[in-house]
């Protein structure tokens, strides 16, 4: 019997090639997109779960309340790892201190690489996390403070194919011996470094450099919140309660003078939800999951619509089968098999499409996803997409087709009793509603990205590039500046300690002023600059003046508008006394607010100070002279650099890089909208074709009676276009709500204009019109004699 079903299914598909191709195309495209998205979602949810103890591993974070705002820092003070030892539920703790953009070289300095991320780690790092060593022994990787553990990629870069164990690496002018080689940190790990150094080394240096005020060791220093600290708890230990224990212990150690709360966040959550509770990454994943469901729904709807529309053609066959003995469930099963055969073909094509499109998909999603049929997780994604769509698509048509009353169907009438025409219309409306919503989202995301790119940040970021200086180079800064000032094409030169001016990170609460409220926890972003920085960046000074490059600068401060407002100071601000990191000084200037962090945040308080020379060079040039300027700076750099690599960054590119994930989301949405419209139109095309066939007699009669081609096209098209219009009406409020929700994540945002909805509606309507017209015109110009003669 099953063989008979498969035979019938295959022959039926072959006989109706046109509709089979429409169905398979829509399903294959929908399945391919759905599966690729599912892989991405799977990947996002898989972060850090390769650590077998991940359910018990937590990251500590610091939470402050400052004048109504909640501030969260990922780092906590070093002593928390010591407190952990006296908490029974804590099995172990590990501190990590990261340093970005570091230079590593081999001993001969013939291979030098910058842009390395290194970390100082406590000795329990490799026990807590599952990062396998390919060479070396976990228990003895850090025999002393001159040891380093590197990854396979780092080893390959520095030492080629030779064994890296025992080799020397130079970091910060110091020799380190490689005592371990790690497998590269997996892509789905939140913890990823190029080299690991022992925390004891950092501790030693900290103490040797005098510590931090009265705190001479990292285990005592309560003021440095720079340590990423992980704890492993006993199973089922209450993480919230343990956070409170840490908070209480810290408060006690500060003699009650602390309002910071420490919280624990599970390792598996940190990729998608940041320590401050911002779950925009998780929301994006959830949105993509919704898009998967919607795209697969649209593809299913095509199949359901076409199958039910063409049910009339199967009615006779179904009735004959019933008459000669088939029961309803045998017929149901037969139609299910037909759907299975179609889906199998569509799945094969989808898999082929995925192999072809994976590189392109990776480039727009920014991921390195692999599609390998030997990977069980791939099959999981394929199974979910295919089975889900199959079930959704097959049951209704199979039920409909198997429910025909035999005699009526044989006569050419069939009452499905299920309101099939209205149901099909509702499905088309649903498809186009989704497509229009996606179109609106795409337009608004695009507008928002353009807005962000073009927004006036309060300073001029065009043609400014930065060059990080090593200590050696920085020692000759004055000479370098003097040379470069004569260089044609270099307009301004300044220095700062800010590596990325569009995302300033360093902040502190250590600021005091006369009328500071007792309970104020104001956090202020702190930036070291020189006398030329404000003018180089073209930041307007609202009151007062700039630094002048003399020693008196060390007791002067420049604040931004938001700082002075939050401090509750009254004008004139210039001349007022403040204390910063326990050092007294005077406000000499107030600058206009400018955006120094993501445009998802409003401007916060900022202080410029000039206690030491910054190690980042800022150079303003022009479009025509940029290459010359870079070459000139490189020449000066290499004069003093002693083999350290030269690198530069244009700050407008750094700015744009912040929104990379939003840009990618925007691109992906554009692709989804295109796919949704394509599949919907494919279905519409199939339905229209079928409708034309059914109405062929009516069209013939109308033509004979004198109807023009255009009136027939109008007659045939208007029903379908009405559906698209209804879809548009339904889509507007949903699209408005969805885009509004997304825009809420930005402090600076575009307005949602009415014309965007109109544009999306017109676009959808136009595409539908083209789809429908093609077949309508064909039907309208056909010779009526042929259709009437056949009848």
């Amino acid at each position, binding site marked *: 019997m099953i063989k008979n079903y498969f*035979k019938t299914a295959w022959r039926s598909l072959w006989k109706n090639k046109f509709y089979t191709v429409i169905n398979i195309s829509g399903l294959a495209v929908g399945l391919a997109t759905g599966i690729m998205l599912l892989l991405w979602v799977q990947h996002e949810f898989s972060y850090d779960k390769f650590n077998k103890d991940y359910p018990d591993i937590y990251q500590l974070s610091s939470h402050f309340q400052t004048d109504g705002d909640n501030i969260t820092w990922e780092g906590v003070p070093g002593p928390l790892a010591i407190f952990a030892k006296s908490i029974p539920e804590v099995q172990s703790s590990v501190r990590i201190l990261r340093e970005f953009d570091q230079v590593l070289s081999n001993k001969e300095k013939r291979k030098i690489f910058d842009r390395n991320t290194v970390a100082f780690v406590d000795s329990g790092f490799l026990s807590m996390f599952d990062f396998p060593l390919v060479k070396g022994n976990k228990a003895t990787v850090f025999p002393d403070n001159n040891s380093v553990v590197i990854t396979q990629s780092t080893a390959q870069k520095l030492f080629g194919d030779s064994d890296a164990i025992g080799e020397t690496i130079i970091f910060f002018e110091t020799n380190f011996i490689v005592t371990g080689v790690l497998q590269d940190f997996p892509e789905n790990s939140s913890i990823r470094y190029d080299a690991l150094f022992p925390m004891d080394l950092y501790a030693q240096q900290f103490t040797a450099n005098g510590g931090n005020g009265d705190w001479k060791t990292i285990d005592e220093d309560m003021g440095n919140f720079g340590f990423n600290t992980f704890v492993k708890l006993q199973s089922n230990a209450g993480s919230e309660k343990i956070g409170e224990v840490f908070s209480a212990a810290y408060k006690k150690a500060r003699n009650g003078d602390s309002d910071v709360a420490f919280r624990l966040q599970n390792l598996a959550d940190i990729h998608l939800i940041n320590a401050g509770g911002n779950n925009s990454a998780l929301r994006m994943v959830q949105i993509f999951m919704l898009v998967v469901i919607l795209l697969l729904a649209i593809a299913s709807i095509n199949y359901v619509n076409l199958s039910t529309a063409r049910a009339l053609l199967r009615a006779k066959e179904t009735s004959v089968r019933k008459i*000669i003995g088939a*029961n309803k469930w045998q017929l149901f099963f037969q139609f299910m098999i037909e759907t299975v055969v179609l889906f199998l073909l569509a799945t094969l094509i989808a898999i082929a499409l995925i192999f072809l499109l994976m590189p392109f998909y990776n480039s727009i999603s920014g991921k390195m996803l692999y599609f390998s049929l030997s990977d069980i997780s791939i099959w999981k994604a394929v199974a979910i997409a295919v089975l889900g769509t199959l079930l959704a698509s097959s049951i209704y048509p199979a039920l409909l087709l198997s429910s025909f009353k035999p005699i009526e169907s044989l006569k050419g009438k069939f009452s499905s009793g299920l309101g099939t025409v209205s149901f099909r219309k509702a499905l088309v409306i649903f498809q186009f509603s989704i497509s229009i919503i996606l179109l609106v989202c795409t337009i608004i995301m695009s507008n928002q990205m353009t807005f962000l790119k073009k927004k006036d940040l309060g300073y001029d970021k065009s043609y400014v590039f930065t060059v990080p200086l090593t200590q050696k180079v920085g020692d000759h800064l004055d000479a370098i500046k003097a040379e470069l000032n004569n260089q044609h094409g270099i307009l301004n030169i300044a220095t700062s300690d800010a590596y990325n001016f569009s995302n300033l990170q360093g902040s502190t609460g250590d600021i005091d002023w006369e009328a500071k409220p007792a309970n104020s926890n104001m956090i202020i972003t702190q930036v070291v600059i020189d006398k030329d920085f404000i003018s180089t960046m073209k930041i307007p000074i609202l009151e007062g003046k700039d630094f002048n490059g003399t020693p008196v600068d060390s007791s002067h401060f420049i604040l931004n508008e938001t700082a002075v407002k939050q401090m509750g100071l009254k004008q004139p601000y210039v001349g007022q006394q403040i204390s910063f990191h326990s050092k007294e000084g005077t406000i000499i200037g107030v600058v206009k607010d400018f955006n120094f962090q993501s445009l998802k945040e409003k401007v916060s308080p900022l202080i410029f100070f000039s206690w030491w020379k910054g190690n980042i060079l800022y150079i303003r040039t022009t479009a025509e002279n940029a290459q010359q300027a870079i070459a000139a700076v490189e020449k000066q750099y290499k004069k003093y650099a002693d083999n350290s690599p030269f690198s530069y960054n244009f700050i407008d590119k750094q700015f744009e890089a912040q929104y990379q994930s939003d840009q990618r989301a925007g691109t992906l949405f554009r692709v989804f909208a295109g796919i949704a419209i394509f599949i919907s139109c494919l279905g519409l095309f199939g339905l229209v074709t079928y409708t034309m066939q059914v109405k062929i007699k009516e069209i013939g009669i109308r033509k004979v009676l004198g109807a023009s081609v255009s009136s027939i096209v109008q007659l045939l098209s208007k029903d379908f276009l009405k559906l698209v219009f209804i879809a548009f009406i339904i889509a507007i409020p949903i699209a408005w709500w969805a885009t509004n929700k997304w825009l809420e994540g930005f402090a600076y945002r575009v307005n949602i204009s009415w014309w965007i909805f109109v544009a999306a509606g017109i676009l959808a309507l136009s595409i539908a019109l083209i789809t429908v017209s093609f077949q309508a015109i064909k039907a309208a110009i056909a010779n009526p004699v042929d259709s009437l003669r056949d009848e």
Partner: protein
Amino acid sequence: MIKITDLQKLYRTEEVETVALNNLSMEVKKGEFIAVMGPSGCGKSTLLNIVGLLDDLDGGSYLFNDIEVAQFNERKRSDLRKHNIGFVFQSFNLIDELTIFENVELPLIYTKVPAAERKRRVEEVLEKVQIMHRRNHFPQQLSGGQQQRVAVARAVVNNPKLILADEPTGNLDSNNGSAVMQLLTELNEQGTTVVMVTHSEHDARYSDRIIRMLDGQIVMEVVG
């Protein structure tokens, strides 16, 4: 074999109620060949559908082999039908996607006959209707007469006790029509009861008894 008493069948739409069969009573003995005749709309096809358990009654009684089937649900009717009744239609109603062999095999699949036995019985019946040489062809490759012979083969492959034929020669020329009528006669001679609806006086002469209908009632019975 068939005993119908006071059969009522109504067709209802939103506004109109039509009496298709009006207190109709009839009997068919085992082995009889009955022709049912009458003008269009008299209810003869409706009667055939009820006899063939394809439609339900609105009133009256229907004994099929002494079993009261008037209140049978669809599943019971289907069961009884597939084991006891074969159908031949005016427009053949073969399934285009199946070969001749597969079309004739279909009733045996639905009655769960094993594969080897199916093959044997299909070949036997195809030989009988002299279409065995075309067994791997599709219906659209055959002439009308050939298709109807296949339809007859399909109707008899399960050895039904009753064959119902609805204008079996309606779409055939006279030669092919005669060939089909000959087949039905041979089956009847072998013991199968045949009830045939027809417009053709010529075809009706093959029967033992002609039942004439008008306006949903039997108005005359003529022994052939």
